[in-house]
C-alpha cells in the first residue's frame, strides 16, 4: 500500500514536493503576491507523515496550505516556536478540501507539529530579519483578560454579599415566603464563580480541611457532607426553608454564618491572581458542574431551583471564555466561533425555561421536567463541553 501511495503522490504532488517522508525542498518557498507559499501534505505513509513542500521561507507573510491526503491518524497541525503555538488547523481528514492559514514570521527556527505522525515535529526555517519585538502578543491579550476576569469575580461576590444580606434579614425577621424568594435571588452569584474553588481556602487552613474551605462552608450539599465539620451554607438553609418550611434559631445561625463566610470569600477573591488557563479550566469546570449536579436536579434538591444555578454556571463559563476570546480568535478563530455558537444554542434553550414571575427568573425544575427535558439540556452542554475542553491547552501555549 505504501508503495502505490508514494507513486500516486508523486503524480499529483505540489510543486517541489519530494515524496519521501518529511524530506522537504530546502529552497525558500515561492512567493505569490509577496506571500510565501508552503504546502503541508499529510499522508498515511510510514505510519503517518507530515510533508512540507519547502522547509524554508523568507521573512514576512507565509501561507501554509494543509491537505490531508491519506493520514487517518493525524487531525491537526500547529506551527510552533519554542513550544508556543503561533497558528494551527484542526479537523483535518482525508477527503476534505485544503485549508490554509497565514502568519507573518520573522527570521528564526520554527516547528511544524503534527500529533499522530510517526515523526511528529518537522523543522521550518525563516530567513531574513528577526521579527520586531511583538506588541500586543496573544499572551499579552490573555493576561489582560485575566485581569478583567478578576474584576468580574469581585463584582459577582459584591452582588452576592448584598443578596445574602437580604436573605439574612428575611430569616432574622422570620419571614418564610420572603426568605424563600430571596434564597432564589441569592443563588446565581456563587454558581457563576464556583470554578475558582481551589482558591477559596481561608488563610491558615490546609487545603484538605473542610473547616477552612469556603466552598464547603458556603455551598455544600447534603450528599457530600463531612460529619466532622457539619453542614453549613446555602443548602442547609434551603433544607429549612423548603423542606422543613420553618425558620428556627438554627436557621438564623446558619444565615449569620453564611453572611460571615461570604464576606471572607470577598477578601479571599480580592487577593486571587488568575493565569489564562485558570479561566479556560474554570469555564470547563463550570460546564462539568452543570452536567454533574444541575441536570440531575441534585444541586437544589429541596427548592428545585436548579435552572437558576444552571444559568449561573453557564453565565460564569461564558464570562470566563469572553475574557479569553480575543486571544483565541487570533489562534483559532474556528474554535472561538464554534464555542460562541454552542453558547448561543444553550442560552436559547434556557430562554424557554424563563419565568419572569418566578423568584430567580426560572421555572422550577420538577421531576417531570427532568424526565422530559433533562437529556435535551444535557446534550446542549455536552456539545459545548468538548470544544471548551480544548481552550486551556491553547491559552497555556500561546505565543509570547
Amino acid at each position, binding site marked *: 500500500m505504501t508503495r502505490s501511495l508514494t507513486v500516486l503522490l508523486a503524480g499529483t504532488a505540489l510543486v517541489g514536493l519530494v515524496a519521501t517522508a518529511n524530506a522537504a525542498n530546502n529552497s525558500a518557498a515561492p512567493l505569490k503576491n509577496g506571500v510565501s507559499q508552503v504546502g503541508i501534505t499529510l499522508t498515511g505513509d510510514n505510519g503517518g507523515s507530515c510533508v512540507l513542500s519547502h522547509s524554508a521561507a523568507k521573512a514576512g507573510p507565509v501561507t501554509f496550505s494543509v491537505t490531508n491526503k491519506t493520514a487517518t491518524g493525524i487531525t491537526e497541525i500547529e506551527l510552533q516556536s519554542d513550544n508556543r503555538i503561533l497558528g494551527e488547523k484542526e479537523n483535518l481528514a482525508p477527503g476534505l478540501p485544503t485549508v490554509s492559514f497565514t502568519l507573518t514570521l520573522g527570521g528564526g527556527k520554527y516547528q511544524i507539529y503534527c500529533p499522530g505522525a510517526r515523526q511528529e515535529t518537522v523543522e521550518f526555517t525563516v530567513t531574513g530579519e528577526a521579527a520586531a519585538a511583538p506588541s500586543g502578543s496573544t499572551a499579552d491579550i490573555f493576561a489582560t483578560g485575566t485581569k478583567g476576569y478578576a474584576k468580574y469575580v469581585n463584582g459577582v461576590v459584591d452582588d452576592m454579599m448584598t443578596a445574602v444580606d437580604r436573605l439574612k434579614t428575611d430569616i432574622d425577621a422570620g419571614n418564610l415566603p420572603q426568605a424563600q424568594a430571596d434564597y432564589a435571588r441569592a443563588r446565581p452569584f456563587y454558581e457563576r464563580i464556583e470554578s475558582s474553588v481551589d482558591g477559596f481556602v481561608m488563610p491558615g487552613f490546609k487545603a484538605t480541611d473542610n473547616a477552612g474551605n469556603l466552598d464547603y462552608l458556603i455551598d455544600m450539599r447534603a450528599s457530600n457532607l463531612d460529619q466532622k465539620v457539619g453542614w453549613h451554607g446555602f443548602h442547609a438553609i434551603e433544607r429549612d426553608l423548603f423542606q422543613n418550611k420553618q425558620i428556627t434559631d438554627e436557621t438564623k445561625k446558619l444565615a449569620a454564618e453564611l453572611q460571615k463566610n461570604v464576606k471572607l470569600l470577598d477578601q479571599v477573591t480580592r487577593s486571587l491572581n488568575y493565569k489564562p488557563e485558570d479561566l479556560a479550566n474554570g469555564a470547563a469546570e463550570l460546564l462539568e458542574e452543570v452536567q454533574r449536579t444541575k441536570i440531575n436536579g441534585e444541586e437544589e434538591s429541596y427548592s428545585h431551583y436548579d435552572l437558576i444555578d444552571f444559568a449561573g454556571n453557564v453565565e460564569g463559563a461564558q464570562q470566563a471564555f469572553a475574557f479569553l476570546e480575543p486571544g483565541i480568535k487570533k489562534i483559532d478563530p474556528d474554535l472561538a466561533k464554534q464555542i460562541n455558537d*454552542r453558547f448561543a444554542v444553550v442560552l436559547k434553550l434556557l430562554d424557554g425555561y424563563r419565568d419572569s414571575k418566578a423568584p430567580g427568573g426560572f421555572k422550577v425544575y420538577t421531576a417531570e421536567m427532568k424526565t422530559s427535558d433533562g437529556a435535551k439540556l444535557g446534550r446542549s452542554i*455536552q*456539545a459545548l463541553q*468538548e*470544544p471548551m475542553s480544548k481552550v486551556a491547552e491553547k491559552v497555556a501555549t500561546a505565543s509570547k
Partner: protein
Amino acid sequence: MTRRTDTRRPHPAAQLSRRGLLVGAGLGTAGLAAAHATPAIPNDQDVVDLTRRYPFYGKAEQAGIRTPPQRYVFFMTFDLTTNERSGLQLLLARWSASIAQLMKGETIGQVEPQRANGVGFDTGEALNLGAASLTVTVGLGPKVFTTAYGLAAQTPLLFRELNTLPSDALKPAFTGGDLSLQACADDPQVAYHAIRDLARIAKDTGTASTRWAVMGFGRASAGKGQSTPRNLLGFKDGTRNIKDDADFDRFVWVKDGPSWTRHGTYQVVRKIKMDIENWDTDRVSDQNNVFGRHKVSGAPLTGKNEFDTPKFAQAGEDGKPVIPDHAHVRLAAHENNDGLKILRRSYNYTEGINEVGLLDAGLLFIAYQNDPAHFETLQAKLGSSDALNEYISHIGSAVFFAPPAPHVGSYIGEGLFV
C-alpha cells in the same frame, strides 16, 4: 507518543472458541472427535481471533454487512446539529479517518497528551485490546437527504421513512436518527470504545448529538462459515439467512439510482423487546409451534435437521398443517413471500431490569436489503399474524442508507457531495 506497536502480536488468549474443549479434542485426536455426533471443529468463522482486522477502505460495500457477525455490537444513532453541508462533510470525514484507525486496532490520537493542559483525543480504554474484528458501519438517515443540506437530488432511489406497520409499539426514545453507527467486535470494550470516541468527535465538531443506543451482547445471526446462534428465546435465529454472493447481489446491494449509491444498502433497525418471563413459562410444544421449529436442533417441525427445507404443505394426522399457520418460519419464509429474502445481522441485548421488575431484554434486529419495502412486506405479515407477537413487541425503529466503502483518501458518502 501513543502509537501502538504491539497490535500484530497475537494475544495469549487470542484463540478462543465457543466450544474450546471440542476444538482441543478435535485438533489432537481426530478419531475421538469423529465419534461425537456434533462436528468437533467449529467453522472457521466461529473461532474468535482477537487480532483479526478487517479493512475499512474498499471498492464495494462497507465492512460490517457481509462480514461474518462478530460477538458484540454497540449501535448508536445521532441527531445532526449542524445546519451546514460542510458540517456534515466534516463529520463524515473525521469519522471515516477515525474508523480506519480503530479498525486497525490503533488509537484515533493521543491518549495522554504531553502538554499538561491538553485533553486526550482517544479515551484509551481499548489500548492493547487488539482490533478484535472491529467493523464500524455508517448509516445516513432521512434528514441527510433534504434540501437543508442541498442533497435532496442525491437521495438513494428507494429511500424513505418506514411505513407504520402492524403491531408497531414504537417509543420516541428508541426511534429515528439522522445518522447511525453500528460497531461490531469480538471484544465488547472495543465496540464500546469505538462508538464513544466517535460520539466525542460528533460533539467536538458541533455537528451531531447522541440520540439512542443499544449494546448487544451476543450475535443472533450467522454469516457464511458460522454455525447458527440463538436469540434470547433459545431458538436458532437466521438459519435461512442470506449467505451466498448471488443472494447478496440480488437482495442486498443497491443497483439503481444515483451512482454514488452503488454497493450501498438500506439498513433497517428495530429494537424488539421480549417478554422473557412469559416465554420461559410457556410449554415447549407451544414454543416449537410459535417458531415452527424444534428448539434444540433448529429443524423445522417437518424435518430432522436444521437445514432441512420446511414442508409447509405437510399436514399431521389431525389434518392440520404440521408447521402451524401462524408459525414464525411459515410467515417469514421466502417460499411464502415471492422469494423475498433480507440479510439479518441481529444481536441480543439486555438493559437490566425494567421499572416493573421484569428482565429488560430482547433483540436488536438489524437488516440490510436493497429496498426498505422488502422489510415492510415481511414485517407487515409478521406484525399482523405471527404467533411470536404474544411474546415480543417492536419498541424502536429507524432506517438508514449505508453508503459504499470509501477508497483510500476519501470518506464515507463523499460521492454524495458532488
